[in-house]
C-alpha cells in the first residue's frame, strides 16, 4: 500500500485567505472575531462571531457562475484552488479519473434553508426555484468542487459535524492507499448562518466577547465559518513530480461516545479511544507526539473533558506535550475546523512553529496542561495529533508526521 503525503494546503478563514497570510496571522495571535453582520442579532443576547468579511467568490470560481452556488461551496472551491496552486498543480491538467474529492461539513448550506423559509414565511413559496435542490443538499459542496475541476474520481461527502474535516481526511487517506485515487482534495467547509448561530445561542453556548479555550473564565464557543483543503497524494505521485512535501498522513482513529447529543462523555472514554486508535494505526506511542491541535471550543465542558481524555492517553507525557486551540482565534468553523487544524499540523511540522491559544488570561486548575498560552512558539514537531469532537458524540483523531523518506 502506498504512503500518503500532503503536498498543498489552501484555506479561506477570518484571518486570511491562503497559507501565508493565515499562518502569519495565526502565529501573531490575531483574532478573526467581530460583530455579526450577515443577519440581525438584536433579538439575541450575543452578537459576535468569526464571520469572513469581504470574501469574493468571483475571484476564484471560474468554470461556474459563483452566484449559482451556496456559500459553503464557494468557500470550498476557493480553498481548493489555493491548495492546488500551493501544491504546484495546474487545475486544468489534473487526471480527472484518479483525482478525487473528500469533504466534510456540519450543516452543508443552511443559508439555502433560510432563503426557503424566508419565502415560505412571506407566503411566497413560488419564489423558491430549482436552486433549492440544486444548492442545498450537502453533497453539492463536494459536487461543485468536482464540477469546477471536471473530476470523475471518488467523490465523498461526510457531514460528521464538527469532526467532519478529520473524517474527510481519513477517507481520502484510505482511498489513496487502496489505489482508488492518486490525488485527493480533502477538507471541509461551513458557512456562517443564523440557523447555526440561533442553535448555539439557544444552548447558551456562545461566549459574549471572545473565545477562551482552557481559561478559567471561559464563557463558551464562538461560531465561525471557513474552508480548509489539503492536497493528499500518493507518495509515488508526489515523488514523480518532485513535489515538496509538508507531512505524511500517518493514521487515524474514529469512535463514538454513544452518550449525549451535544455534550461529550465526562470521562472522555470515546475521545481517548479515538486517540489510542490513531496512535496504534500510526505505529506510534503517546511520547512521540510533539504537538496536539486541540478541539478546544472554549466551552466549560469540552475543554475539561478533553483535558481528562488527553491525560488518560498520555499520562505524564501530557504535561510535556504542547496542546493549543486555534478556535481561540478563528472560532469554531464547524465542518471546516478539523480540516483547517490539519493544515495547522502540517505547517507546524514543516515550519517548526506552533500556534498559541490566545485569550488564556487566567488558567483553570482543572485544565493544567501546556496550552501554549497567548504566544506562538518555536518547537520541533515530528508528529502532530489533530483531535475533533462532534455533536452526536463522534470523535476523530488524525496523526501527521514529518516525511523523512
Amino acid at each position: 500500500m502506498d504512503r500518503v503525503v500532503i503536498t498543498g494546503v489552501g484555506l479561506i478563514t477570518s484571518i486570511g485567505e491562503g497559507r501565508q497570510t493565515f499562518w502569519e496571522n495565526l502565529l501573531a495571535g490575531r483574532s478573526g472575531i467581530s460583530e455579526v453582520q450577515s443577519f440581525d442579532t438584536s433579538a439575541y443576547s450575543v452578537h459576535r462571531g468569526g464571520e469572513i468579511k469581504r470574501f469574493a467568490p468571483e475571484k476564484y470560481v471560474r468554470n461556474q457562475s459563483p452566484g449559482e452556488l451556496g456559500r459553503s461551496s464557494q468557500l470550498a472551491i476557493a480553498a481548493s484552488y489555493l491548495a492546488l496552486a500551493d501544491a504546484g498543480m495546474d487545475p486544468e491538467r489534473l487526471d480527472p479519473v484518479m483525482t478525487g474529492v473528500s469533504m466534510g461539513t456540519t450543516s452543508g448550506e443552511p443559508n439555502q434553508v433560510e432563503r426557503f423559509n424566508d419565502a415560505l414565511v412571506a407566503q411566497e413559496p413560488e419564489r423558491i426555484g430549482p436552486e433549492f435542490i440544486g444548492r442545498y443538499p450537502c453533497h453539492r459542496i463536494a459536487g461543485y468542487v468536482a464540477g469546477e475541476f471536471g473530476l470523475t474520481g471518488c467523490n465523498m461527502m461526510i457531514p460528521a459535524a464538527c469532526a467532519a474535516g478529520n473524517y474527510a481526511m481519513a477517507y481520502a487517506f484510505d482511498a489513496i492507499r487502496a489505489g482508488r485515487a492518486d490525488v485527493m482534495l480533502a477538507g471541509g467547509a461551513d458557512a456562517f448562518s443564523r440557523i447555526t448561530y440561533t442553535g448555539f445561542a439557544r444552548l447558551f453556548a456562545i461566549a459574549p466577547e471572545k473565545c477562551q479555550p482552557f481559561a478559567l473564565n471561559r464563557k463558551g464557543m464562538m461560531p465561525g465559518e471557513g474552508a480548509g483543503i489539503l492536497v493528499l497524494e500518493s507518495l509515488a505521485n508526489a515523488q514523480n513530480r518532485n513535489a515538496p512535501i509538508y507531512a505524511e498522513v500517518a493514521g487515524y482513529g474514529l469512535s463514538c461516545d454513544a452518550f449525549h447529543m451535544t455534550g461529550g462523555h465526562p470521562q472522555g472514554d470515546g475521545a481517548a479511544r479515538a486517540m489510542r486508535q490513531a496512535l496504534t494505526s500510526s505505529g506510534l506511542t503517546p511520547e512521540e507526539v510533539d504537538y496536539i491541535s486541540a478541539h478546544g471550543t472554549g466551552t466549560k465542558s469540552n475543554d475539561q473533558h478533553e483535558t481528562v481524555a488527553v491525560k488518560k492517553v498520555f499520562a505524564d507525557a501530557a504535561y510535556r506535550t504542547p496542546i493549543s486551540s486555534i478556535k481561540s482565534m478563528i472560532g469554531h468553523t464547524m465542518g471546516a475546523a478539523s480540516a483547517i487544524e490539519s493544515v495547522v499540523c502540517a505547517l507546524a511540522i514543516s515550519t517548526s512553529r506552533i500556534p498559541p491559544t490566545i485569550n488564556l488570561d487566567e488558567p483553570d486548575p482543572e485544565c493544567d496542561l501546556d496550552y501554549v498560552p497567548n504566544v506562538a512558539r518555536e518547537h520541533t514537531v515530528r508528529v502532530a495529533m489533530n483531535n475533533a469532537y462532534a455533536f452526536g458524540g463522534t470523535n476523530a483523531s488524525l496523526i501527521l508526521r514529518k516525511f523523512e523518506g
Partner: protein
Amino acid sequence: MEMEAIRSTVKEIIANATNINPVDIGDTASFQEDLGLDSLSLLEIAVDVDHMFKLNLSDEELSARLQELRTVQDAVEFVQSFKTQGVSA
C-alpha cells in the same frame, strides 16, 4: 397562581418533552435519576416553562437557574416564586 395549577402545567410540559404520562410523574421526581432526562431535555423543559408561564427570564438567568432545578418540586417552587415576585413588583 395556585401551586396545584402550576404543578399540573409543569407536568404537562415535562410530558410533552418526554412522552412520559403526566400521571406517572411524581411530585418529587428527580429529573435525572427518576425521569432519566439529560441536560438537553432539561433545557427544553426550562425553555417551555419560561414561555408557558411568561417568566421572561434572560439567557443568563435561565442558564444559571437551570443548574438548581433538580426535581419537579424545584421547578414548581421556582415558578411560584417568580409569579409572586411578578405580582408584588
